[in-house]
């Protein structure tokens, strides 16, 4: 049986859970969200990624009901939710600061939302126990928030916001307060819980690695607009703009003019000794300005010119950043431009082939880079 890929956004039959329709949000003169239209589907793990001030938090707060759109509408299961106050929405939020009530125990924190509904007492108790178990906190129910560690607090906040089984869970920088190692473990835990509960998650983050790890789709935002929405692989491998390419991971950009030299293949005159060859499904007219974006790990470094490479340039090693598993070489070209190339350290450092000031060849295939309009 073929594994069905989870991609409701490609299925025209699917109805979105959330629809932003022409939403604009202004605070005074400041435009936080600029005419934004976007669908989010059920069971999705949707990440809003962008620098601070890009409007991602505003989008989330509009979903929670703490802000109202200035123009446009937000639909939840087809219903406009404008005017529905936050306490009447089937949407829960996990706050960046966790916002755990310091005067209540872990148990009472989780039960807080359930007690606001007309759920019977023993059903509440059962649900709280279930949530404690889900987040591996059963031992800590009677503690106060200050009596548990940061990672445990994060899980209490998650349990509390999931307790009411919301249609949609919003996570505002949920892992921002954790140290790096704990953050990585927690990312996987978060994905597990999302899968177990089948809840739709919308996560706000400025950490691209986190967005790539957890999300089914990532929306890269800038200045109140969504620049690109796609799966993590597509965002990384096929960014639609220099902004996205530059924001996600490390990238080298060669700026020049394109000229068709075959079907879906172009020669880019970027000022080097010879033009670079790159394939692109997106059409470019002759003489059009283009940016060729190439990830450092897709550029090979060698002492001799490789015989079969589509693109090769010579330069000299300017700097070497040793990262343990990888090394990044900064190579200066005769044009003065510095290109980053990455290679895996499969050998011990002492036997490394090149060092500072060494002349080297950089090479990449025609499909390695992405050709972007300027």
């Amino acid at each position, binding site marked *: 049986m073929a594994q069905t890929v989870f991609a409701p956004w490609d299925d025209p039959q699917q109805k979105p859970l959330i629809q932003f329709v022409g939403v604009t949000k202004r605070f005074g003169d400041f435009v936080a969200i600029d005419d934004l239209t976007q669908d989010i589907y059920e069971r999705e793990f949707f990440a809003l990624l962008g620098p601070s001030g890009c409007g991602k938090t505003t989008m989330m707060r509009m979903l929670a009901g703490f802000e109202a759109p200035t123009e446009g509408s937000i639909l939840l299961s087809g219903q406009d939710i404008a005017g529905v106050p936050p306490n009447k929405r089937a949407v829960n*939020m996990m706050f960046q600061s966790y916002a755990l009530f*310091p005067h209540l125990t872990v148990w009472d924190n989780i039960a*807080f939302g359930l007690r*606001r509904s007309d759920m019977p007492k023993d059903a509440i108790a059962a649900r709280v126990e279930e949530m404690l178990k889900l987040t591996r906190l059963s031992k800590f129910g009677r503690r106060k928030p*200050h009596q548990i560690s*940061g990672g445990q607090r994060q899980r209490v906040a998650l349990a*509390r916001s999931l307790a009411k089984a919301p249609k949609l869970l919003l996570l505002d920088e949920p892992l921002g307060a954790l140290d790096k190692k704990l953050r990585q473990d927690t990312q996987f835990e978060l994905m597990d819980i999302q899968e177990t509960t089948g809840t739709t998650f919308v996560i706000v983050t400025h950490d691209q690695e986190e967005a790539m790890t957890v999300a089914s789709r990532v929306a890269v935002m800038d200045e109140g607009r969504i620049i690109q929405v796609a799966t993590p692989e597509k965002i990384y491998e096929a960014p639609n703009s220099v902004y996205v390419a530059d924001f996600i991971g490390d990238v080298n950009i060669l700026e020049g003019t394109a000229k068709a030299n075959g079907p879906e293949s172009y020669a880019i005159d970027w000022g080097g000794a010879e033009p670079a060859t790159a394939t692109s499904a997106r059409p470019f007219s002759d003489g059009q300005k283009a940016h060729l974006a190439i990830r450092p790990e897709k550029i090979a470094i060698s002492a001799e010119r490789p015989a079969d490479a589509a693109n090769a340039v010579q330069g000299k090693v300017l700097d070497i950043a040793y990262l343990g598993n990888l090394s990044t070489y900064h190579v200066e070209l005769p044009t003065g431009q510095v290109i980053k190339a990455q290679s895996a350290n499969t050998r011990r450092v002492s036997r490394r082939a090149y060092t500072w000031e060494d002349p080297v060849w950089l090479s990449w295939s025609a499909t390695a880079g992405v050709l972007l309009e300027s």
Partner: protein
Amino acid sequence: MNRLSPFNVVSLTFGFAFLYLPMLILVIFSFNSSKLVTVWAGFSTKWYGTLFQNEAFLDAAWVTLKVAVMSSTFATVLGTMAAYVLVRGGRFMGRTLFSGMIYAPLVMPEVITGLSLLLLFIGIGLDRGVMTIVLAHTTFSMCYVSVVVSSRLATFDRSLEEAALDLGASQFDAFRLVTLPIIAPAVISGWLLAFTLSLDDLVIASFATGPSATTLPMKIWSSVRLGVSPEINALSSILIGIVSVGVITASLMSKRHAVRVRREEQAAQRTA
């Protein structure tokens, strides 16, 4: 900073001696058996005895206590409301005037506040007595309460209230179940501050009262204008004693609480 220089030690010693010696002398000489208050003639507690037989003092103390409890309670309710409006109310008509009216009484000379309230009470033909003192004290102490509470509210993590709303609580429930329990210490210190201010006030009460009600500070005042009296020394010592016990207990409790919280936090990080 640390490391006290000799200069620091000297200034602290003399400073605290200056602050405490007068009160200490007062307390010691309240146990003096002589009526001549500046000459020590042997230990005696007789002035405490005569104090407790002095009906006028006891009556005044009772009036003062009533006024203080009522006015500080009203002031706490009104002041907390005012603080909430100031910090969370957003914009509304006349907000500047409102915050001005909250801060002005704090720096207003008591003689002016007292005079203006007296003119009001006479203007509207209110019988002056316990009720008018309560009104006067509530008005100026609510401003103190609101300053104490609003400085707590200003540092209050707003996402706690949002979390309560997000979990389905109404605005009022969010205040009752989340905000109020967390700011409770500030509200309580606001009440205590209002209570002490009322207990202490001479000038405003003198203006606001009529012949029917005399407060303890007014009684003390009319007696000390004639000079030092051993009975007043005894009364002062009692008041100083109550305040000292209260303040020392409160600060010990808060210190112990802080130590406990810190220890628990450390324990939580270690077991994690």
